[in-house]
Structures are given as C-alpha cells and as structure tokens.
C-alpha cells in the first residue's frame, strides 16, 4: 500500500504551504512536492489603479517585507516618470538604500533569532516544544534580547524614513517624500535611546561567531544536509560588489561558471521564462537559454554570496572570505549554509547603514526629480529572500494595464522542492515510522530559504499544522493536527 504524507501548512514560514511526500507500499519515497499558494490575485487587483498608487498598495502584499515591495515598485514607477536609478537625487538614493538595508537587517534578524536559532540551538530532532523562540528565550535570554533589539533597530529605521512602520510614505515617483533630520539621525548614532549602529555591528559580528561555532561542531551536517547542485542568481554593482538596491543581474551554475553575465535589470524579460506545474499555483522561473531543467536558480543570501565578486564593506568582506575558506568550495550548494550567508549580509547591512547615517548628504532636501514619462517600468531589487521583480505598464491616463511580479520565493520554488526531495529521500525513505524529528527536517530544509507565502489572510484561529497519511486510494490512514497557539 502506498502512503502520502502531507504537512499543511509548513510551520514557521509565512502564509500557507503544504508538503506532500508520496511513499510506495515499501515506504520508499516515490515523489515529493512543495505546494504554495501564489498571490497572482494582486496583479489583477492593481490593474486599473493609477500608477502612483502602486508603491503604497503593494505594501499590503506582504506583512513581512512591505518595504521591499514598496521599493521595487518605486523603482519601476520612477521609470514611468522618466527617472532611471542613476537620475535619482543623491539624497533620495541614500534614503532608499538606508530604508532597504534597514529592512533587510531586521528581516534577517527575525529569521535567524526566531526561525533558525531553535533548530541550531536544540537540534532538528529536539522535542517539538523546544523548537521555538520561547525555548531560545528561556535558555539564552541574552541572545533573544539582542535579537529583539536588532529587529527593533531596523524597524525604527523604517519608521524614521517612512513616517511610520505600516503604510508609511517613503518613496514617491522620482524620489523620496521626506529626508532624515539631524535628531532622527542622532537617534541611531548616539545609543542614548536605542542601542547604536555601532552596537548593531558588534552584535552582528557576535552572531556570526555563533554560526561559526555551530559550523565547527556540525561541519558534516551543514555540508551534506539538502546539498544539491543549482544555479545561483543575484544582483551586483558595476564592480561586482554585492548590492541589494540597484545593479546588474548575475547568475552562475553550481560550479561557478557565468550563466548570466551582469545584464541590466530592465531586460529581465529577455532572459527569464516562468514554467507552470499542475500541482502548484506558484510558477517556476528559469533562464531561457538554459531551459526549464537546467536554467533554474536559487536566490537569497546563499546565492548572493555565491555570485558576488566581493562585498564593499570591510568586516562583511572578511567574513565572506572566511565563509569560502571554511566551506572550501568556489560555490556553496549546501542549503544550511544559507544561515551563515544571511548573517554575513546582516553585518553588511549594519556597516552600510553606518556609512549612510554618517553621510551628511542624507539630510539634503533635494529629493525629487522628473523626466519624460514612459509607459513601462521595471524595478528589480534584492529583497531579504532574493531577487524581486516589479513590472508595470500604463495607459495614456496613467492607469496600470499590466502588472507582473516575480517574488523571491517564486525563484526559490524549484530549490525548495529539491531540498524537500533531498530530505524525503535521505531521511524519510524506507523508515519504519515517521517521527516528528523527520518531519521537522523537511521544514528545516524549507525554512533555510525563509519563504514568504503571505498571500493568505492572517486572522485568528487560522493556522494549524496538519499531517496526513493517505493511501493510494485517497483514504487517510493517519492524521496529526497541531493547533497554533
């Protein structure tokens, strides 16, 4: 009798995802799938709205990274008013960068302290009641406290630039709404009201020491768990530096050979296609010239660390070099190294924020530019989880006629499926019983990509964890449901 194991929804990822592992009558894995509900509804929803509303409306796409959507949309909308990234006022670019790096800083801090650290501190086979941030707080109060304050620092940056944390007005077509005043800047530099930016750098270095110590003890696990070859995609500046806000798209294969050689972001349609599968609402992007089978890429921290030539800030660059010395490979294809890469990026964000905060030019009031209007705008940025594309077209009244979004989690769709397949084949296949620890390893593999599936409505009493065993006739032979707190 064949069985089907379903994990629905996957825990500690956003929105609703579901994993289905098909076992044959001998308990061997036949196939596995990671299903996600995609938010195509938003692309239709925004059609007919005036283009200037897009940067505000898209913030409602996602409660986790509204700033990323806001800035990707803003870059696209800039083009609709005739402004390319290089035409933006210098202060506007600096403010947008500060906003963006603050957003990535707090998002990465959340992922590490809340989602990843329970697995790292207590192990994948730890009792379920231990695999959460509460257990981290109980056993390592200082780590939890720092995690909260790092999150808060990033949120305060967002609040200072956008006016408020939620639905703030930061970017406007062709620039920024407001500048940073001296008092706001001092808030982050002085350390009087909240821990200073220098403290953020210190703490970022500390958590990198934490992951390096973990790596020292768990080299084999980190190197082998969900290790599989793939392409890697990310954005770099003209010199090949890691860049989250603007630059060219670069992709490499699993051996480090260039598959996309620093192409301009507004040409993305020429290079990428999106495949569909009958079992998932989410599309599968791939490089056209390599085809569906070989052209898919991972995105996010690991991919970005793999594709960039170097990092522009000294402390993060030193850590990047050490990362590759430890892993001893030109390209790292091991899923769990994403956590280490994410922490290097966290440090980089802190360093960049310090540079920007200490730059007097960020307080200029020269914030908005305009040019000759166009009918098409494409904005691509590196969001916390990877490359994020917003593409808008408008009619002659300025109403949006087309919207295409390719979000980071969509790029990682194939990679997450590969990771689930690895766990299914190496951990679950042909075992006499399926334990909580085994199922958690499926989730660990997915969590490393920090997927954000937040199209789902977030209302009370909605989240449950359902594990079903279904035989080949469709009959449920076992089922476990964990209710959310």
């Amino acid at each position, binding site marked *: 009798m064949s069985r089907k194991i379903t994990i629905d929804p996957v825990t500690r990822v956003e929105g609703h995802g579901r994993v289905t592992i098909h076992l044959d009558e001998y308990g061997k894995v036949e196939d596995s799938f990671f299903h996600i509900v995609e938010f195509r509804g938003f692309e239709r929803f925004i059609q007919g709205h005036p283009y200037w509303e897009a940067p505000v409306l898209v913030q409602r796409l996602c409660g986790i990274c509204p700033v990323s959507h806001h800035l990707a949309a803003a870059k696209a909308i800039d083009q609709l008013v005739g402004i390319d990234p290089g035409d933006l006022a210098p202060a506007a670019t600096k403010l947008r960068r500060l906003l963006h790096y603050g957003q990535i800083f707090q998002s990465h801090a959340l992922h590490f302290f809340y989602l990843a650290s329970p697995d790292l501190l207590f192990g994948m086979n730890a009792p379920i009641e231990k695999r959460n941030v509460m257990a981290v707080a109980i056993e390592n109060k200082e780590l939890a406290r720092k995690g909260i304050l790092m999150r808060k620092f990033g949120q305060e940056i967002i609040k200072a630039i956008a006016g408020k944390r939620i639905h703030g007005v930061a970017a406007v077509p062709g620039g920024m709404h407001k500048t940073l005043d001296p008092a706001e800047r001092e808030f982050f530099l002085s350390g009087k009201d909240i821990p200073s930016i220098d403290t953020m750098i210190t703490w970022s270095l500390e958590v990198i020491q934490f992951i390096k110590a973990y790596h020292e003890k768990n080299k084999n696990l980190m190197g082998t768990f969900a290790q599989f070859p793939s392409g890697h995609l990310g954005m770099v500046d003209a010199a090949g530096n890691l860049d989250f806000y603007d630059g060219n798209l670069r992709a490499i294969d699993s051996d480090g050979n260039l598959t996309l050689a620093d192409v301009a972001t507004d040409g993305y349609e020429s290079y990428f296609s999106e495949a569909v599968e009958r079992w998932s609402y989410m599309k599968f992007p791939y490089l056209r010239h390599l085809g569906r089978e070989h052209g898919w890429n991972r995105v996010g921290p690991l991919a970005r660390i793999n594709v960039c030539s170097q990092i522009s800030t000294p402390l993060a660059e030193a850590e990047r070099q050490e990362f590759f010395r430890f892993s001893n490979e030109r390209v790292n294809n091991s899923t769990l190294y994403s956590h280490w890469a994410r922490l290097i990026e966290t440090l980089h964000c802190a360093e960049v924020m310090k540079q920007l905060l200490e730059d007097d030019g960020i307080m200029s009031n020269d914030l908005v530019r305009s040019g000759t209007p166009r009918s098409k705008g494409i904005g691509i940025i590196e969001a916390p989880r990877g490359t994020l594309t917003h593409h808008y077209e408008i009619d002659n009244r300025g109403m949006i006629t087309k919207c295409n979004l390719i979000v980071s989690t969509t790029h990682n769709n194939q990679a997450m499926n590969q990771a689930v397949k690895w766990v299914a084949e190496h951990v679950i296949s042909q075992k006499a019983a399926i334990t909580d620890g085994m199922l958690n390893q499926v989730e660990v593999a997915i969590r490393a990509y920090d997927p*954000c599936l937040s199209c789902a409505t977030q209302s009370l009493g909605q989240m449950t964890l359902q594990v079903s065993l279904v035989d080949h006739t469709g009959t449920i032979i076992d089922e476990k449901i964990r209710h959310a*707190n």
Partner: protein
Amino acid sequence: MKKSVMPTKLMVIGIGNSSRGDDALGWRVADLVTQVPGIHVEYRYQLQIEDAELIKDYDVVIFADATREISLDGFTFLPAVAEGNVTFSTHRLSPTAVLSLCQEIYGRHPEAYILALSGIQWDLGLGISPVGTTALNKANQFLSAWIRKRAAPNFGTALHQLNKQTTNLLS
C-alpha cells in the same frame, strides 16, 4: 468616598490588512481608538518578536484582530494568558506568545485581552462585510464601556467622541 483611579497605560494593537475585506477589522478598531487621548495605538500586519519589547511598559494591552469564528455577539473579548508552551508558528506570533516572550525576557507582562471580531470575507480589494460591520459596531460599543470602566478617568470625555466617530465611520 469615591475611590480614586490611577491612570492606566493602555495600548491597543490592531492586527490585520486593510486591503483584505474583514481582515481590516483589527485596524478599524485601532482607527477608532486612535483619536482617544492617552491610549497608545499600533498597527500590525502580524505580531513579531519585538512587540514583546513594545508592550513591556504598559499596564493593559488589547490585541484586536479578525477571526473566522462566528460568535453570537459578533466578537469575543477574552483575557490573553502568557503561554510558555508555544509549539510552532509562522513569521508571526500570537498575542499569547508575545506575552510569554515579554515575561521571559523582561520579567513581566501587561494585563492583556484579545478582542476577536467575526468576519467572513478575506479576498483582496473587498471591503468589510455586513457581518464584519455588525461585529465592529458591537465591539466598539463594548470597548468604549470597558475602557471607561477600567481605564483612567481622563478617557471619559474622549470616549463620547469615539462613539460619535464610530457612527460616522460605519455610516
């Protein structure tokens, strides 16, 4: 002799998404309360770990959110209890988990309540349903009375204004 009432530091956190039908109910409660002097209001798509730090210095916190559960009165208002046994979550935290984290890290947590408003529609671009509107109206009447009874006297006059605003917003 009339018993003196100490001022209460009260926070209302509206949770939801104003673009998704009845998921806006938590924010609409926050909209209404935001005009009341002395009450601190926050908006969230979902609760996060740093909210443990946010609530630590308050006496009373009310978490307002939409729920799919249909209740007789259109809403429920129940004490939130810090629960250490958080089994799992998404990026978001539940109110009880935030309280628990606050207790664990800062050694205390505020008295807290969950105001859960019944809703039925959640798609993008939809407004609040008639069911949600009824829930919002009833919940606000209740909340006004509750705040008047529990919180500092200085809220009293402002609550008349709050009730007036409710009528305007719902009309």
